[in-house]
């Protein structure tokens, strides 16, 4: 009855996705990525510490409280990658990491008591920025502190993961991270082509990258994810094909192919990228098509949105079983958790609420130094929000909506409740992206690559008078 249900037994995705460039071309809209619904622009500052505490208390009151997922944001990077839209701070001053660590430990000790002690931590994720700006020793201190203040699960299915910049880590470091209990690594690669690397200010050799992937595999990590980006300046089909071939050979369990979103008015670093060097829409589509073709040809399974996985990876298994979930960290098998975000700009999802820490370092530091929980905005979800979040989650993870299940769970008449969405869907049905039966709304094999456009039909905030649809606040859907 909520977006993070534990047992999500739905019909499996049976259709193989079909990449239809012509269809994608006709839907060049901007759209949210739906790592949350409602999306972050709906958060407001009337939601503060008091509201967060109430939601945490309520989350403890469940008969079987949800497990906990911890996200730790490390904002620092050694140098700016020009494409980046993340919250990060560029510095080479390692002392900053030490100060940051101190406050993180304080935040952990302040936030942990909000949650009942018997709630197990099933997932830890270090994101950034560059988490390996911190040394394995420093990361160990964070894990230590979290382990003392929270109750780490000892289940073999727990996911303790870290995003790694391969340029600043040695194989020895990887072994140390694995010893700390980190069992999944996610590596930024983007593109190996030297011209592209130059244009985005991220020069990273193939040897360096493969050595880190190997080290991850050798140290017993359960899976490695590699991020690639299409739509970068200077990108060519030949160059990207080589990158894909090199990566496929290294056999990471998971791959993400993100579309570069050029929004220099929002992300200052992107001003360094000259628009003339950017591939046009045709080229973007060709690059994406190439990635889809090469990856599926190499046996990778399309998970949804930007994600692929080998069939024996937990994500692919979860998708086949219908238990796939989606949260701020992307696709996961553990979204039935309450998500506790730690560090500057981190987002939490506790009970029926979202909340976010200050996006500026000073705001986050001051709150902690004054002994306040550092929440600066958020929102409580109402009935409609929760219902739509559930539907969008089903779409993003299973590529279909089980109408009867939604009606049973929420005690609504689907067709009358969603008459507006049905109208908007009609156009997508015409285009062959969606099929509607009496019991299901299904993304067709072609629609599987346009899930966010289907999801947008159910987004109540896009259709309200102060609509933010079709504006470049969100990245391009393709």
């Amino acid at each position, binding site marked *: *009855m909520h977006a993070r249900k534990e047992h999500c037994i739905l019909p499996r995705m049976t259709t193989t996705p079909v990449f239809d460039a012509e269809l994608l071309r006709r839907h060049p809209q901007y759209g949210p990525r739906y790592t949350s619904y409602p999306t972050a622009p709906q958060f407001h500052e009337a939601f503060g510490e008091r509201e967060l505490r109430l939601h945490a208390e309520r989350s403890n009151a469940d008969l079987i409280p949800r497990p906990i997922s911890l996200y730790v944001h490390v904002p620092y990077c050694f140098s700016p990658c020009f494409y980046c839209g993340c919250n990060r701070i560029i510095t080479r001053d390692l002392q900053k990491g030490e100060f940051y660590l101190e406050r993180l430990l304080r935040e952990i000790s302040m936030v942990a008591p909000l949650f009942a002690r018997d709630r197990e931590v099933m997932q830890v994720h270090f994101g950034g920025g560059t988490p390996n700006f911190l040394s394995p020793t420093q990361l160990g201190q964070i894990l230590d502190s979290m382990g003392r203040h929270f109750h780490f699960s000892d289940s073999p299915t727990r996911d303790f993961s870290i995003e790694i910049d391969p340029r600043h880590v040695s194989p020895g470091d990887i072994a140390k991270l694995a010893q700390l209990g980190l069992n999944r690594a996610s590596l930024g690669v983007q593109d190996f082509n030297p011209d592209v690397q130059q244009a985005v200010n991220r020069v990273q050799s193939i040897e360096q990258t493969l050595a880190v992937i190997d080290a991850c595999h050798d140290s017993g990590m359960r899976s490695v994810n590699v991020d690639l980006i299409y739509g970068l300046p200077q990108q060519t089909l030949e160059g990207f094909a080589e990158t894909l071939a090199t990566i496929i050979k290294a056999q990471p369990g998971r791959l993400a192919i993100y579309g570069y979103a050029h929004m220099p008015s929002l992300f200052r670093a992107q001003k360094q990228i000259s628009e003339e060097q950017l591939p046009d829409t045709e080229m973007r589509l060709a690059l994406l098509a190439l990635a889809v073709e090469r990856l599926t040809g190499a046996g990778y399974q399309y998970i949804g949105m930007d994600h692929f996985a080998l069939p024996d990876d937990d994500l692919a298994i979860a998708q086949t079983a219908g238990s796939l979930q989606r949260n701020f960290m992307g696709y996961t098998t553990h979204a039935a958790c309450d998500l506790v975000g730690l560090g500057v700009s981190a987002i939490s999802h506790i009970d029926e609420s979202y909340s976010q820490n200050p996006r500026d370092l000073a705001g986050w530091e001051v709150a902690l130094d004054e002994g306040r929980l550092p929440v600066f905005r958020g929102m*409580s979800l109402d009935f409609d929000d929760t219902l739509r979040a559930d539907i969008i989650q089903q779409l993003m993870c299973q590529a279909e909506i089980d109408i009867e299940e939604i009606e049973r769970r929420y005690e609504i008449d689907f067709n009358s409740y969603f008459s507006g969405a049905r109208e908007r869907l009609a156009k997508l049905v015409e285009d062959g992206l969606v099929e509607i039966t009496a019991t299901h709304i299904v993304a067709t094999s072609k629609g599987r690559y346009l899930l966010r456009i289907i999801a947008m039909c159910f987004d109540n905030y896009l259709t309200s008078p102060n609509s933010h649809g079709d504006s470049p606040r969100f990245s391009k859907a393709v």
Partner: protein
Amino acid sequence: MSSYTPSSRAARVAANDGDDLHFCSTCTFSSVCSERGYDKSRLRDLHVLVEHIGPFREGQHIFREGDRFNSIAGVRAGTVKTYITDRNGREQVLGFFLPGEVIGLNAISQSRYPCNAIALDEVLLCNFSFSKMSELAASMPGLQQQLFRLMSEDIGKATLLAGDHTADERMAAFLILMSRRYASPDMPARRFRLTMPRTDIANFLRLAAETVSRILKRFQTDGLVRVERRDVELLDTTRLMEIASNVLRN
């Protein structure tokens, strides 16, 4: 702030409030009075004080231990918890009261309430002046019987879990009893929402909160129940009854 989850919205809606001539749909006294030809206007003629009070917000006290007792109250909407605080300052939950049930009955023999009553969510009550009610009961045997029945049920509820029962037995009995109490014509009791937080249930059953969750997880794995946040679905009532039989026999 929004209510925590959307399903079973009907359960949160206040009972049909009735009007000058009709009782609220949840009123425990409506049938006995109606049978005798008393409608609400007649009761008013008899100077029986029937007063709708509330809403009480979550966490608000309805009465406290030691307050002067002058009325009993029917719950029209929401859930009321009664509790006492022991000598060590620890709270001890005595019971939960759902729509249609009556609070204050355990004060009848005294002039003061022997416990605290607190709203667990938004609570609406119907207050009955007890002295007026007693007078009326003297001339209305049906009402008298209903009062006795309610009082004995109340005592039964309080002693039910006092025996030497295992944690599993208590939990199963609690689920069975709550499903009976949540039963209503338009809401099958196979599925119900426990409106009280886990810690209160644990306290009431004299178990640790973790134990409540652990047992429910096991019941779920064994296919006895399905638990989703505070919603419970009984999947195998027969086996639950077996587990609870030692408790329920009393």
